[in-house]
């Protein structure tokens, strides 16, 4: 779909690079109203240098997503909400100072105390309105930058000089011009509304499913980005997403749930209704099985994860730690809310067994004939993603980067996919391929699991088929999970608990159990992986700027894929939560027909 009309890969002409030079300016056809308005207002905004004094703007960037969304919520066979909206979501950035030292990376970066007059974009293609909006947005972004810069200088003036060589605040990238032909697939509101209602009716067939819900989001629209370094990109930025959740209650009161998330970048690759129906029925079946499964006891011993569960685990333990946010500058002694990466100091160290290689490659759009969710042409800074070899022979080699330099990694590899903190973007994975050079078929790994449990005199081993990732339990469950994780000496970052976990008895019999979560599982555990399976699975999900990629949270969506083999762990700890369990409802369910 994307049409690249040429890539201008010229280096920037020195640090005084004043924006678009006449020669590198793309010629914009007269009917490209938005591009013309962006170019003209960007050009005019340079005049702000006159009023800026010491901290003149050195970088401007405009981006706009022209979105049309259809959002349908349904439950038990009926639609609960339909919202069809059309909106233009703008972002204007102004950086003052220089690439080495600018307004970002301070605890107050991006915070503006003045009043806002920008933000509501016209839906009509009106040049004058576009210019006015860009003018007001630029003004606000410029004032925000100046204000942040003043606070940053004040904090630095009050702090002892750091021993480490200061990092630049912004890296340079080669400008890219790629004005893709964009198209919006036709979305039939009525057909989708009917489909949603029919799909949500599936759970009426399960008497063990007490409550359920389904959400369908069809998001279409191009994203356009233009910056003062000469980058102009426009590309299709669609996403088609269905997620559903079903809840039940076990006889002892324990609340059980399962969820599914189906996402696609193209409407014609979005699964057919019959396939969606299967996926939803599967979670209904799982809830029914869980409600009737025995409650689990604490376990410590070997654990085998099937490829899907392994991919869900690696998305968290590897994926989230490949993003290294920079600690913001602040006033001395002031507490800064900040979650560092567990990998921050581990470059060159072993993070996986020697047989493992991990590559993130967002330039791939298919894998074994199946569409990859983590493909994207440009990140939120207009940088095309590069394949990144993050782990080689078990050793951590690289991080996923944005244009905010991190120590040892001064340039962007095009992974600014989510909004970040303190004036910068956050990196996130695209397609993460986890490969092992030594693999064993799953059937043999299961035998090995049984051998290990026998040798250690345990009655059973554990097999995990699915984790609760993206996390689909409620917010209070996440709090209790985080608390339990911190108390059990694990990481401050909780790990999704298993949804489908089985006892594997010496005779090979599998028994589903319910109510276990990991204890003390962190990225360090990955070094103790014993073996990987020959079979691999591609696991898609939608990453959001929220812990455990909470299902349905956050306005910014970064769909991603993880391809992983199954994994055998020498020893993991699992424990049941100590929560008090609620009674069953006093009144029996109304729909006794099911």
């Amino acid at each position, binding site marked *: 779909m994307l049409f690249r009309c040429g890539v201008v890969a010229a280096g920037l002409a020195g640090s005084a690079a004043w924006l678009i030079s006449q020669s590198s300016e793309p010629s914009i056809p*007269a*009917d490209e*109203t938005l591009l013309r308005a962006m170019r*003209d*207002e960007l050009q*005019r*905004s340079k*005049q*702000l240098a006159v*009023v800026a004094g010491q901290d003149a703007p050195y970088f401007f960037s405009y981006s706009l997503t022209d979105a049309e969304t259809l959002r349908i*919520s349904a*439950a*038990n*066979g*009926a*639609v*609960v*909400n*339909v*919202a*069809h*909206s*059309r*909106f233009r979501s703008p972002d204007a950035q102004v950086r003052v100072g220089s690439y080495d030292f600018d307004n970002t990376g301070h605890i107050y970066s991006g915070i503006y*105390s*003045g*009043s806002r*007059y*920008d933000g*509501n*974009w*016209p*839906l*009509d*293609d*009106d*040049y*004058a*309105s576009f*210019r*006015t909006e*860009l*003018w*007001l947005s*630029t*003004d606000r972004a*410029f*004032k925000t930058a100046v204000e942040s810069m003043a606070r940053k200088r004040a904090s630095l003036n009050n702090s002892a000089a750091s021993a480490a060589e200061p990092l630049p605040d912004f890296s340079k990238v080669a400008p890219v011009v790629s004005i893709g032909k964009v198209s919006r697939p036709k979305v039939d509101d009525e057909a989708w509304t009917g489909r949603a209602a029919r799909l*949500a009716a599936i759970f*009426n067939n399960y008497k063990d499913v*007490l*409550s359920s819900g389904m959400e369908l989001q069809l998001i279409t629209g191009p994203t356009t980005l233009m910056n003062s370094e000469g980058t102009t990109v426009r590309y299709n930025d669609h996403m088609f997403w269905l997620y559903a959740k079903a809840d039940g209650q076990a006889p002892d009161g324990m609340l059980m749930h399962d969820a599914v998330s189906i996402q696609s970048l193209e409407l014609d690759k979005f699964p057919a209704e019959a396939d969606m129906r299967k996926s939803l029925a599967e979670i209904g079946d799982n809830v029914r099985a869980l409600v009737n499964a025995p409650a689990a006891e604490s376990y410590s011993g070997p654990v085998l994860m099937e490829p899907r569960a392994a991919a869900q685990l690696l998305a968290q333990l590897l994926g989230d730690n490949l993003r290294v946010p920079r600690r913001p500058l602040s006033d001395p002694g002031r507490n800064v809310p900040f979650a560092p990466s567990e990998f921050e100091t581990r470059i060159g160290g072993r993070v996986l067994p020697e047989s493992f290689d991990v590559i993130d490659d967002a330039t791939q759009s298919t894998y074994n004939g199946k569409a990859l969710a983590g493909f994207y042409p440009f990140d939120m800074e207009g940088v095309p993603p590069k394949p990144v070899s993050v782990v080689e022979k078990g050793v951590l080699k690289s991080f996923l980067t944005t244009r905010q330099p991190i120590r040892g990694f001064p340039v962007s590899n095009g992974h600014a996919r989510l909004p970040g903190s303190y004036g910068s973007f956050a990196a996130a994975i695209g397609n993460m391929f986890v490969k092992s050079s030594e693999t064993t078929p799953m059937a043999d790994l299961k035998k090995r699991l049984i051998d290990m449990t026998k040798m250690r005199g345990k009655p059973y081993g554990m097999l995990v088929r699915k984790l609760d990732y993206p996390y689909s339990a409620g917010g209070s469950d996440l709090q209790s999970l985080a608390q339990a994780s911190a108390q059990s000496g694990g990481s401050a970052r909780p790990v999704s608990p298993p949804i489908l976990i089985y006892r594997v008895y010496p005779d090979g019999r599998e028994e589903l159990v319910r109510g276990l979560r990991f204890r003390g599982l962190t990225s360090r555990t990955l070094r103790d992986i014993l073996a990987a399976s020959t079979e691999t699975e591609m696991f898609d999900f939608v990453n959001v700027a929220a812990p455990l990629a909470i299902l349905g949270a956050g306005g910014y969506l970064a769909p991603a894929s993880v391809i992983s083999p199954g994994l055998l762990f020498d020893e993991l700890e699992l424990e049941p939560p100590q929560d008090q369990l609620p009674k069953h*409802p*006093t*009144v*029996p*369910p*109304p*729909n006794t*027909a099911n």
Partner: protein
Amino acid sequence: MRSLIALFALVSSCALAQTPLVKILSDELDRNFTVLKQKGDPAPYFMSYEVTSTDSYALVASRGSLETQQHNQTRYLDVTIRDGSAQFDNYHLVANENRPRFTQATPIALEDNGAAIRQAVWLATDRTYRAGAQRLIRLKGDEKLRTQATDTSDDFDKEDPQVYFAAPATLKFNPTEWATRLRKLSAEFSKYPGALDTSVQFETRTVTQTLVTTDGTRLEFGRPFTRMIIVANGKAQDGMDLMTMETFETDDPAKLPKDADILAAVQKAGANLTGLLAAPLAEPYVGPAILSGRAAGVLFHEIFGHRIEGHRQKDESEGQTFTKSINLPVLPDFLSVTFDPTRKQFGDVALNGYYLYDDEGVKARPVTVVDKGILKTFLMSRSPIQGFANSNGHGRKSPGNEIVSRQSNLIVDSTKQVSDAELRQMLIAEVKRQNKPYGLFFDQVTSGYTTTGRRGLQAFTVVPLVVYRVYADGRPDELVRGVDIVGTPLASFAKITATSNRMEVFNGVCGAESGNVPVATIAPALLVSEIEVQRKDSSRDRPPYLAPPPSSISSAIRGPRP
């Protein structure tokens, strides 16, 4: 013949069979109530389900372009369960504890799908029952630790069941046509360069309420709301943010004024903003003033209306300004105040505070709260207070909140009326008498707020938009900017000396404990011998550095894409 038709229409709307939604809700109500009464401990003695269905269109245009186009449909369920007895139930208020909230707005199926709605209702009932039962058990347990409350009235009253089915008709509305109109109207603001952010907004909304209770009440009723809001925002050279606004309210979009009249309103908002941007800053001032009918309405709503809401007389954290004032003078003897939710219209203007039944299913009725200056009663929900055992149809809320007593259409009547011109002469005379250079005329206000709590100041603020100085020496009136009216309630009333003979409407939305509810005020302009104004808290960031971009280049391609 004519009366026959009317009669027939009346009968048909009342005798209409219950709707599918009423049937689904009633059946589920009976089922849950029966089981909970048998097995629940504590058992409920009253339950109700209320569904608020909203169908709304919103269109916003700015500078000739469409900015927002939305169609939204929602249906929210609220569940009320009262456990124990009417004398003491789970809603019982205790000192130093917030008013409890058990309900949540649960979104339910937009169509009358029995299976889906029953499932949602059952789950919401279970959740609400658990929360209520838990609180009642706790309150009963520690009741002996508490001293007796001053007000020992019951927690819930007895009301006659109401049955009425007349859902409002679906509105006929053409969004494309309106989009074209709004584009044209909003383009007019381009002529006012100081207006940084402007819009012409249109909203039409039908709200239908369905209520079933274990008392036997079965209601389905509602009303449409249509309004246009014209707003212009700008920033003065010293950083002060300024706004002007014009509004039109009616029930049917077809009844909105013609484009020429709306255009005049756009021009008025633009001209007022331009005037304000250049106007001098107001000085803190104490002296005589005229409040326009709209400003007077807001003042009454804030400083008076909120203090005669019944539940505040019982809540021991409240200031209770008027609790002991029944049959005592609280206003000048030439003023009376009535709350009349049955009043649908004032002139051409549809009144926001109009409804047939309140959110507890109590029939709406006019309530004279102050008669010739004497306080007669309070606004009552079904939660009794000392001396007032029954509701007078003012229990209101928005979805997801618990009921408290709220205002409806506040009407200020006066027996000391003069013409607007005479009122102005009286102001100038008062200015001279007090030896002041000028008095103030508050033309337009946007909003106000008040604090009624025991902790903190008993005070109010009203935020005026357009204020003039009226000079004693005959100079023309002068627009000023940056004033807030401030004061303490009781002191303010005594200073009203006369009113105009022309009533004005202010339609608004009032936000308080039980959420946002539509309200209106109808009041004459007031002459007050003394009012206090303070300088508005103002932002100091400067207007945009660069001049507005040139727009002439665009003229060729202006307008929507085909």
